[in-house]
């Protein structure tokens, strides 16, 4: 069961979310849709993110792989040099640095696509509200015993247009 309620003021929305959480509905079951990002206060609808970690890991992997590749390529040639060494970090440092950055860029973008849910298979049956400008729509996924309580909370919080959608 999906309940969708429109709010026009952020304070009321936040109050509703806190009340719903107190009533036992998980934060993972709640989604807020809006045409612009809503800056929630701490503790209201925190979404833990691993993006920084993924970025760092991607960076290390990419940089390490590239440096190893360069090392192998340069030692593949049995060069005679009278001066500079065939491989040194002074020379390869730039490539190491740039590929590290490239790795973090790609990892960040890739993880963004995953974490935002844009790249995951969408469940078409879950309703997506059309959001009007200036409106924040709260979608709550709750099972039968909680539905009436949730409706009450949304009503008293001052939501407009509470819709109900059944999901097969």
């Amino acid at each position, binding site marked *: 069961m999906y309940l969708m309620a429109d709010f026009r003021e952020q304070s009321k929305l936040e109050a509703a979310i806190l009340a719903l959480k107190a009533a036992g509905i998980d934060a993972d079951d709640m989604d807020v849709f809006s045409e612009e990002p809503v800056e929630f206060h701490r503790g209201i609808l925190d979404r833990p993110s691993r993006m920084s970690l993924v970025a760092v890991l991607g960076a290390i992997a990419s940089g390490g792989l590239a440096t190893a590749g360069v090392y192998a390529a340069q030692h593949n*040639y049995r*060069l*005679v*040099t*009278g*001066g*500079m060494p065939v491989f040194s970090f002074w*020379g390869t440092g730039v490539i190491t640095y740039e590929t590290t950055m490239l790795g973090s860029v790609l990892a960040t973008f890739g993880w963004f696509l995953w974490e935002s849910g844009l790249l995951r298979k969408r469940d078409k049956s879950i309703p997506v509200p059309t959001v009007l400008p200036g409106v924040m729509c709260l979608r709550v996924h709750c099972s039968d015993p909680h539905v009436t309580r949730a409706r009450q909370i949304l009503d008293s919080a001052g939501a407009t247009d509470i819709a109900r959608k059944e999901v097969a």
Partner: protein
Amino acid sequence: MEHRWGMSIDLDRCTGCEACVVACHAENNLPVSSPDQAEKGRTAHWIRVDRYYEGEFPDVKVKYRPVLCQQCDNAPCEPVCPTYATYHNTEGLNVQVYNRCVGTFYCANNCPYTVRFFNWFAPEWPEPLQLQHNPDVAIRPAGVMEKCTFCVQRIQRGKRDAAVENRPLADGEIQPACVQSCPAEAMAFGDLNDPESKVSKLAGSGRATPLLGELGTKPKVFYLERAK
């Protein structure tokens, strides 16, 4: 023991006649330029004779300095080529691989002696010079960098002949075209790893200085002149 080819040029003997320049052209299939290309600075002379004038007329002194690729042991042109079209071989030569060159010009910019030349157009020779080509030397296409090779084709032939006849190479047996043609016998070519060779002895004499030695390029062409 590997060879290590080097050259000495005696500036006190050089008369500036430029026979070396002509010989190099003939030996290495250098393209012939035209007057207006020459004005634009597009001529190729793997060895050139630079003239330095001192004093005012009538007390003018001229100094001649033949400049060719110095086959630097610490060549600035080598690390900067992105495709390894120029690299150092085991005999100490700085080798230019024509078919690997993509024409980035970086090697030429980094050479402090300005001894590298580019093929601005496909090479041409006025009749009948195209009949005079040396079959041992490749003709370079447009877009490729070239320079003096110490007549590597003559080095290869000399080594091959010695191997076929099962004897060691004699000093002075291999002579690049310029060395061979100098009427003043100002140039000598040989193995720097052989302490008895003429070049080694001259290079070790007090009269030898490398050109732009302070740059640390470790050139293998030694210029001999009376110490001031």
